[in-house]
C-alpha cells in the first residue's frame, strides 16, 4: 500500500472514531435542507431543478470545511505526531495528498448523503438529471478548493482555532471577491485590470454557472488549479518549517 493511501485511511478512520464526523454530517444535511427549502424558495420557484440547493453550497463549505481541515496539521504539530509522521519514509507531498484526499472524500460522502433532495425533486417533477450530476461534480470540485485552503493554513499553526479562523476568513474573501459590492468598493482605488483579476478569483462567480448545471472548462480549471496551488503552498509551508 502506498504511503498516500495509508495516510488517507488513517485520517478517514480518525474522523469517525470521534463523534465529530457524525456531528458534521448531520449539521451539513440539516443546514443544506433548511437553506434550500426556506431561503432558496425550492417550492415557490415551481421549477424542477436543484439550483436553490447548489447555490447555498459555498456558504455551507465556508463553515464546515474549516471545521474538518483545522486539525489536519495543527493537531499533529501540537501533539508531536508530526515528528513521527515526517520521520517515516514518505515525502511531504504524499503526506499532504493523503490528508487532502481524506478530507475531500469525507466532504464527498456528505454531499452524497444529500441524495434525498435529489429523490424529492425527481418525485415532484422531471428535472434534467445530467445537469444535477454536473452540479454535484462541480460542487465537489469547489469543496476540493476549500479543503486545499484549509490544508495549507492548518500547516501554518499549531492552534486549531487559528487554523479555523484563517481558513474561514480566506474562504469568505474568495467567495465574496467577485460580488458587485466588493468590486465597486475597489473600483476607485484599483486599475481595471486588477479589478478583473479580483473578479476572476471569486469562487461564487465560477460556481454560479456550475450551480445552473453548466460545466465550463474554465470554471473547472479554476477549481482544479486553485486546489493544486493551495496544496503546493501547503507543502512549501511545511518544508519551510523544517528548514527555518
Amino acid at each position, binding site marked *: *500500500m502506498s*504511503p498516500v493511501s*495509508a*495516510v488517507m*485511511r*488513517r485520517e478517514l*478512520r*480518525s474522523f469517525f*472514531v*470521534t463523534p465529530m464526523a457524525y456531528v458534521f454530517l448531520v449539521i451539513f444535511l440539516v443546514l443544506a435542507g433548511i437553506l434550500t427549502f426556506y431561503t432558496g424558495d425550492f417550492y415557490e420557484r415551481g421549477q424542477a431543478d436543484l439550483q436553490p440547493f447548489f447555490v447555498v453550497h459555498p456558504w455551507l463549505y465556508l463553515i464546515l470545511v474549516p471545521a474538518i481541515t483545522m486539525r489536519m496539521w495543527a493537531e499533529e504539530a501540537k*501533539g*508531536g*505526531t*508530526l*515528528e*513521527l509522521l*515526517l*520521520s*517515516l*519514509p*514518505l*515525502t511531504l507531498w504524499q503526506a499532504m495528498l493523503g490528508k487532502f484526499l481524506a478530507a475531500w472524500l469525507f466532504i464527498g460522502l456528505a454531499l452524497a448523503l444529500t441524495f434525498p433532495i435529489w429523490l424529492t425533486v425527481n418525485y415532484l417533477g422531471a428535472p434534467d438529471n445530467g445537469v444535477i450530476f454536473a452540479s454535484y461534480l462541480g460542487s465537489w470540485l469547489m469543496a476540493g478548493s476549500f479543503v486545499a485552503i484549509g490544508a495549507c493554513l492548518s500547516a501554518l499553526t499549531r492552534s486549531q482555532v487559528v487554523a479555523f479562523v484563517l481558513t474561514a476568513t480566506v474562504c469568505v474573501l474568495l467567495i465574496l471577491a467577485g460580488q458587485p459590492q466588493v468590486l465597486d468598493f475597489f473600483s476607485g482605488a484599483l486599475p481595471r485590470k486588477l479589478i478583473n483579476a479580483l473578479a476572476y478569483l471569486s469562487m461564487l462567480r465560477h460556481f454560479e454557472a456550475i450551480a445552473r448545471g453548466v460545466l465550463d472548462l474554465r470554471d473547472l480549471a479554476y477549481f482544479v488549479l486553485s486546489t493544486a496551488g493551495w496544496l503546493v503552498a501547503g507543502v512549501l509551508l511545511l518544508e519551510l518549517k*523544517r*528548514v527555518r
Partner: protein
Amino acid sequence: MIETERLTRRYGQLTAVDALSIRAEPGQVLGLLGPNGAGKSTAMRMIAGFLAPSSGTARVCGHDVQRAPLAARRALGYLPEGAPSYGEMTVREFLVFIARMRKLTAEMGRRRFDEVVGWLQLEDVLDTGIDTLSKGLRRRVGLAQAILHDPPVLMLDEPTDGLDPNQKHTVRQLIDAMARERTILISTHLLEEVHALCNRVVIVARGRLLADATPAELEARSRYHGAVSFSAPGSGVSQEMLGRLPQVASIEVDPLDGRITVFPKPGARILEPVEQLLREQGLEVSEIQLERGRLDEVFRQITTAQDAAGASA
C-alpha cells in the same frame, strides 16, 4: 551506522546544535548525554529528517539525510522525545498503520507484529485506545513502532524517561538484546543509563561536543577513580596515619555518615596499602570499597566548565 559531520542547527540567534560530529557503528550503543536543552533532541531530529540542518551533514547507513531522505528514513527506527503516537487509535491500528507506511509485506508485517508485541508485552492492550494507556505502556508502543521494520539503525530519544524501575529494566534489556548487530543511538540525561546500556558516550552541552569516550574512560577522569572508601564505625581511624602513606593525596570524611574516602596520588594504587594499614592498626572496618569513579561528577565537571566558559565569553 550513524555519522554526522559538523551538524549544525540555528534558530535565529540561538545555535541549538553546533558543529556536532559523531559516529556510531554497528554493535555499538552510543549514548548522547547532556543536560536538558543541550541540543540532543534537535540533533536527533535532524538525523531523523524531521528538521533540516542549517549546515553540515548526517548520514544513516551511508544515506545522506538531505539528499536521500527516504533511504535514510527506511534504515532508521526512531522514537521521538515523549513517544508521540496517535491517541485515538488502538495499539493494533497504530502498528498496522506503521507497517503500511513502512511497506512491510503482509507476511513480514504479521511476523514482526507478533514478535514486537511479544517482546514489549503489549498483547493485553492491543485493542485499547492509546490515549487511555499509562505512560509506560505508551512508551512501549513508541518503541514497538520504532523497531517494527527491524531497522539496522535505531535512534531513541530518552527511551526510559518517565518509566518506573521495572519498566526501565525491561526497556534496557530490550535495547541490550537488539544491540548486537545494530547501531543504536540513545539520548539521555540519566547517568545510570549510560552504565546500564552504552558502550560509548558523547557528552553534549550548549550544542557542542565536549567528550567522546567509553564510560570507563569517563570514570577514569573522576577524582574518585581509584579512591578507597570505608566505614569504620566507632573506631577512631587516624586520618593522620592514612595521610602518611606515600600514595595518598588527600582524605575526606563524610560529615553525615562518617564514611572515609582516601584519594590516591595520580596513578597510584592505594587499596592494598590502606587495607594493610587498617589491619596493622587492628581497626574494625565494616566494608571497604574501591571506587570506579563517579560519572555524575565527571558530567558536572565537563558540562559546567562549558557553562562557565560560555558565561565569561
